[in-house]
């Protein structure tokens, strides 16, 4: 019995959404906070909040990824793509304590302001999402 095209399309959308949500999760929730944190305070490379809540963040990003995949080919593709980026960035911002990292080193409290890199990532990420959304809003697949 051949598979109903609607079912296969739905499955394809779901897979694509989960994969893209996972990629956004890796970029914004794992890589960016760990990289920025490692730059600022080498002794605390993995933010504690990431360890305790990684499943929640993964769920949020995957759900948003599926939403963006469902919106593909419609005018909602642009806002959906930008929403995934914005939420991912906000999670990064929260994990990095608003971009100001604190650590202690040999009796000194060290604070490092990494906000410039966070803002640059936000602007570039939103531009990329806009281009990606515009591209997918004109494609059907």
């Amino acid at each position, binding site marked *: 019995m051949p598979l109903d095209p609607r079912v296969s399309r739905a499955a394809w959308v779901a897979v694509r959404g989960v994969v893209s949500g996972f990629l956004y999760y890796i970029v914004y929730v794992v890589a960016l906070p760990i990289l920025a944190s490692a730059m600022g305070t*080498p002794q605390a490379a993995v933010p504690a909040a990431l360890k305790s809540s990684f499943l929640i963040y993964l769920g949020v990003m995957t759900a948003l990824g599926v939403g963006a995949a469902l919106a593909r080919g419609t005018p909602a593709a642009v806002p959906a793509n930008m929403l995934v980026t914005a939420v991912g960035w906000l999670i990064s911002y929260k994990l990095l304590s608003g971009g100001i990292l604190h650590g202690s080193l040999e*009796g*000194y409290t060290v*604070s490092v302001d*990494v906000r410039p890199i966070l803002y640059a990532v936000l602007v*570039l990420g939103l*531009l*990329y999402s806009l281009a990606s959304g515009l*591209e997918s809003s004109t494609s059907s697949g």
Partner: protein
Amino acid sequence: MMAGFRVALGVGGAAVVIALLAPLAIFMAEAAHNPGIIEVEVEAAPGGGLLRVAYNGSMPLSDFEVYAGDTVIHVGYVSRGVKTVPLTPQQLAAIEERGITGLSFKIAGLYSIKQVKG
């Protein structure tokens, strides 16, 4: 055309992020290998004193300030080498009383770093 623009934006964006991260990464790597990358000393001099900042890193630092309790001594731009700034008698007295309690500076004019005792 949009796909090409998106790819160019992705590649260009990654390059921009790496370029922005480079000064901080270089400074942190140098600081990790050389804990004495910044050394601040006070020398007595007629009419006050001299604050001597010796820096061994490759990234120039700006807005460099030294703290002695509530007293802030503005050093300004610091590059590799030694920079000395004159101290007023009040600043010297604050350093003698409290010691040097902290430093703050910017790397590449972007990233602020503050190190305070305690």
